């Protein structure tokens, strides 16, 4: 099977779906780039190249460059979705949701409920998350937890190229608004990805690694950090069961609960800030529904309650590390009541 990067997998998913369904349009700032200039059209293909080449195949009518105007992009995508298109809108950096959240949070997410089930809003919002590039406080956040709090939105956070392709195709075919979060440091990460289109259902976690001692739940880049920690811990005789939920809304609660029922010990790793987050949500879920199985306190390994710092030294401290994850696992593994 061919090896592909996440960037290639996403591009392939978009291309295959756009060929299948003429109602799919890509819309956003510099999704092609070069409009209204003397230089090259498709100069960017998305700032990190995910939509490169689509305008050549599908033309300006379906690969729509917009001004830098996030409210109008998100609102146009929502309005187009509810009237018969299937837009894939790009919110370049997820941090920019602050500019345009009304159109997502009050409009697109609520149409179906407010209108008594009569509206269908097949909208995908692709957006970049993640720290680690010294992009500082307004270009490095991971606000999927905020998106997850909104009834009506679905939220996808893939950790590898295989999942990225299958989940993006699922998102495009889904009839609800989906926020699709792509970690900006992972676009070149490669794995085996089939050439043909395929889907991965939402709400089905991936058990990345089986283990009997401690359950670790992690998303996006943290899946890989937790995997590194698990390798090191295995040499110490601690077997980690690593779960990647892949979607935070819907969340595969059963897989997490079943694992904790067996291990009795849980560490949650989350690159986002710690308050009212995915980590607290999963901790609450387990405390509520698997309390009797717990042999140790639940530990959360997260970013601190701070903005993302610029300078690499501090940014490295901000992001949960494999060492911090391993330390948390050791702690809950060694805990005795």
């Amino acid at each position, binding site marked *: 099977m061919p090896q592909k990067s996440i960037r290639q997998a996403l591009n392939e998913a978009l291309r295959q779906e756009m060929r299948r369904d003429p109602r799919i349009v890509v819309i956003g700032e510099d999704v092609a780039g070069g409009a209204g200039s003397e230089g090259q059209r498709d100069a960017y293909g998305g700032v990190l190249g995910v939509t490169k080449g689509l305008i050549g195949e599908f033309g300006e*009518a379906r690969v*729509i460059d917009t001004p830098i105007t996030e409210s109008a992009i998100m*609102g146009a995508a929502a309005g187009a979705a509810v*009237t018969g298109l299937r837009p894939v809108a790009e919110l370049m950096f997820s941090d920019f949701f602050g500019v345009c959240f009304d159109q997502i949070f009050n409009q697109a997410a609520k149409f*179906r409920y407010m209108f008594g*089930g009569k509206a269908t809003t097949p909208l995908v919002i692709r957006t970049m998350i993640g720290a680690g590039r010294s992009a500082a406080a307004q270009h490095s956040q991971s606000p999927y937890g905020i998106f997850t709090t909104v009834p009506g939105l*679905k939220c996808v956070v893939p950790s590898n190229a295989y999942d990225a392709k299958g989940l993006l195709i699922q998102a495009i075919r*889904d009839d609800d608004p989906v926020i699709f979060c792509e970690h900006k440091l992972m676009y070149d990460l490669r794995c085996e990805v089939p050439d043909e289109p395929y889907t991965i259902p939402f709400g089905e976690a991936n058990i990345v690694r089986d283990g009997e001692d401690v359950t670790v739940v992690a998303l996006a880049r943290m899946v890989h950090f937790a995997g590194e920690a698990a390798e090191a811990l295995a040499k110490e005789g601690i077997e980690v069961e690593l779960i990647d939920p892949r979607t935070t809304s819907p969340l595969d609660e059963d897989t997490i609960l079943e694992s904790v029922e067996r291990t009795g010990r849980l560490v949650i790793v989350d690159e986002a800030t710690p308050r009212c987050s995915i980590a607290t949500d999963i901790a609450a879920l387990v405390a509520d529904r698997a309390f009797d199985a717990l042999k140790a306190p639940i530990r959360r390994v997260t970013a601190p309650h701070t903005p993302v710092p610029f300078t690499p030294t501090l940014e490295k401290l901000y992001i949960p590390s494999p060492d911090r994850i391993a330390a948390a696992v050791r702690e809950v593994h060694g805990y005795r009541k």
Partner: protein
Amino acid sequence: MPAMQMSREELLGAYRSMTTIRRFEERVQEEFSKGSIPGFVHLYAGEEASAVGMCMHLGPKDYIASTHRGHGHSIAKGCDVVGMMQELFGKAGGLCGGKGGSMHIADLNEGMLGANGIVGGGPPLVVGAALTAKTLGNGHVAVCFTGDGGSNQGTTFEALNMAVVLKLPAVFVFENNQYGEGTGFSYHCGSGDIAGRAGGFGLPAVKVNGDDFFAVHEAAYDAVERARSGGGPSVIEVDTCRFYGHHSGDAQLYRGKDEVKHLREERDCLQHFRRRVSDAALLEEAELNAVDSEVAALIDRAVATAQAAPLPPESALLTDVYKSY
């Protein structure tokens, strides 16, 4: 289009639609005061010529987006009045199953994309609806109703610019009723000229007298035809007035002495219409009276139905969040 060029059916249709809106709103005010309608209602009485003059040029497949003051737009676009009244009463048979209420009343089958609780919420959505029409090449147009209050929102500016950039079949109607909630237009609009702003975004714009149905109807014809024939978006500023407060129950302390009395006497678009067609002998007095009776019966039926209708079942709380779970 001058009054003389409209058919009798069109004239009667316009009168029926404007009268339906007026009587609907008067009755909603009455029912709200009695406590039959929960929440908030924002009444459109006084502005009827705008919604009807505009929507007469639209078919069911054309789209509109509306505001918190959305009952008039809904009726003008063809939404079922009995279903609307049930929605306001929060009943299961309402247009939105009682889950939207006055501020979110919508009927996608009639091309009505919803009233909107967010001032400036609608303009970007209309950009999207117009994008659908352009992409599918189906010849439909999208019309955004917003107010003088909404004219100051950033979403509105973004939508105007995007509509020009993408050359979309859209019309933006700014219903200037002189108040954003309780703050006067002369204070809240820096330039004092909404239509004048449009030029800066590259849209042609006209100002029309909202007391005059025929003026609105004519401007709307031009704007809709321009959009439909690929001529791009445009703006209409309608100089209008509201007979009630921002919301039903508003004490309206910001109004001048006798302001509403004056508006009702001098600026009633419905009375102007009736006088105009009567003076020109375009419609008979008896025909107009027959429409009045017909509308009164419809509103009575809507209220009686809404009063008798069942509430949504408790199970409705959890449904319709997602299409698939």
